[in-house]
């Protein structure tokens, strides 16, 4: 009992001194709570469907950020990992009758393998070369999918998979827990020692190597990690839609991931997640004018980029918070002095 009380008091202290002092942290907390408690308020299947898909794509966008934002390895073929995850999970489920909780992790492992296959030739490339080369991989795989229609179903894809779980509501909770859990893991990774090395590789690879870091190994690690998370999201998608088709490998899929991530702000993890939760429901909302939907989407992105080239969420965050010039701790923009070192904020 005493130990429980101790942890409760510790939780309360953390909540009061670390979370409730910053608007961005309050928003993150609210985001968690709203997602977890939403079914109490409404169980509209259409709304749940949108949110499940948003959850799945949020994992995908965040995994792109982990690779391309943090290590600076611009990946334009992220659909490869998604597609490999989806197809592997689908084929295993259909032929080996593996239930979703088995086929999705195996699909993710296949995507890790895909990450290695892409990563090794790409180690020698950087910048634009890398971006343009990675674009090629999903297209190559798509060609193979089309030429082997009796295994992959060709244009129609692999259909008739098991459902993710028994009801729409439990599907929702599976996807929410996966999304929150995996994104928290990704955020933790980027905050750890490894994450700092990823930053160093992006900023100056030569300097990182001079400091004794095996950049090759870390770049491959980034490819594998990103492939793993993207593979999970691909498997979830296949089991939720109950079909894995060539649309998971399309160029537009890769582009969409990049749009989400850059729109939300790269090198943040929370940026891409937030962007998916803003853009995906927005796109659904625009369905009232189906012909103009994609056009408005494109124009919105162009206009937002003109004013906030670093992405939407970092821009918003800089508006409501400022950094203490002395101790680099973030404060609410309304404060006159820093909350820890009491230096005057400008």
């Amino acid at each position, binding site marked *: 009992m005493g130990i429980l009380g101790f942890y409760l008091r510790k939780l309360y202290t953390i909540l009061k001194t670390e979370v409730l002092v910053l608007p961005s942290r309050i928003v993150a907390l609210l985001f968690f709570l709203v997602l977890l408690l939403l079914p109490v308020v409404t169980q509209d299947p259409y709304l749940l469907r949108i949110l499940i898909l948003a959850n799945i794509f949020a994992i995908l966008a965040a995994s792109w950020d982990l690779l391309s934002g943090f290590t600076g390895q611009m990946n334009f073929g992220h659909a490869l990992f998604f597609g490999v995850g989806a197809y592997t999970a689908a084929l295993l489920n259909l032929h080996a009758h593996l239930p979703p909780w088995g086929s999705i992790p195996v699909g993710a492992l296949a995507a890790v393998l895909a990450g290695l296959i892409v990563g090794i030739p790409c180690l*020698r490339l950087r910048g634009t*070369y890398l971006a343009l*080369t990675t674009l090629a991989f999903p297209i*190559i795989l798509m060609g193979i999918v089309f030429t082997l229609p009796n295994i992959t179903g060709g244009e129609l894809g692999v259909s008739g998979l098991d459902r993710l779980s028994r009801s729409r509501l439990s599907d929702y909770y599976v996807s929410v827990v996966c999304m929150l859990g995996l994104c928290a893991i990704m955020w933790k990774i980027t905050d750890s020692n490894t994450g700092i090395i990823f930053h160093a590789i992006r900023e100056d690879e030569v300097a990182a190597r001079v400091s004794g870091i095996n950049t090759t190994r870390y770049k491959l690690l980034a490819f594998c990690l990103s492939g793993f998370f993207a593979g999970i999201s691909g498997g979830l998608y296949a089991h939720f839609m109950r079909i894995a088709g060539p649309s998971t490998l399309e*160029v537009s899929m890769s582009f969409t991931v990049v*749009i989400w991530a*850059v729109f939300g702000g790269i090198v943040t993890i929370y940026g891409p997640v937030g962007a998916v939760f803003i853009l995906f429901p927005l796109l659904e909302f625009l369905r009232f004018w189906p012909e103009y939907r994609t056009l408005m989407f*494109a124009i919105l992105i*162009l206009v937002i980029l003109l004013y906030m080239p670093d992405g939407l969420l970092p821009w918003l965050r800089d508006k409501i918070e400022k950094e203490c010039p002395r101790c680099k701790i973030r404060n609410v923009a309304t404060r006159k002095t820093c909350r820890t070192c009491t230096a005057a904020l400008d």
Partner: protein
Amino acid sequence: MILDIIISGLISGSMYALLAIGFSLIFGVARIVNIAHTAFYMVAAYCIYYGTHRLGYHPILGMTAAVILVTLFGLICYKLFIDPIREHEAAVLIGTIALAIAMQEIMLLVFTGDFLSVPSLVKGYVKIFGVKVFYQQLLTVGTVLFILAALRALLMKTRLGLAIRSTAEDREVANLMGMNESRVAMITMGISVGLAAFTGAVIVPLTILHPHMWMHPLIMIMAVVVLGGLGSIRGSFLGAYILGFAEALVVFLIPMGAFLKGSVALSIMILVLLIRPEGLFGVAFEEER
């Protein structure tokens, strides 16, 4: 069969060469990866369709008007959307993707998703070893080679060409030497979009128009510029023909070839990159800090 392969390889090679050189130019000079490059080609093709079919102009007049209009349109897009965010590499990437999607959607709204076609400029064909070679195909290859020669002359013999080449070499030093860097970038953008529009004009009679027609050439020209070396015009030229012929070979020789043509061309690119990471003619860029 062999002649079929040669003709088809030459046509697609020429098309990729023109597009890839424009793409390569603007990357070399302004470090802009213009994903919307082939979208301009698509818009030009639709403009020609509109000019010749709906307004009934003579094809040559329609083509000239289309090239000029699309070039102007490209410059306006550059000024409005690309120039303000040029310093943010990632933003330029998705900005141009969004631009391309916007153009595709506008074309989809105006012309619907139907497959359209434009009649060829010159009718008739000549039989070489029993294979029909249309005059239009010969005309296309000839025009492309002429334009490439003209472009080379422009780059090598004129003062403007010197400015473009030196800006591509080193932006800051070129600026210090009194070249207006942003104006050179603007002019290069004009040339680049002009080349894309021109490709649309010469290819349009040989192909079918639909709003998604920019996707496949885009992937291919990206492969071409990576294969030839980014920013290298000679590399783009050779790479385009290599991949053009590879595509033609796959389509004619392998049973399910039409599905595999992209895969094989891109695999060739990756194989070359494994041996020469900077492409066939590329210069290994100094680390840009």
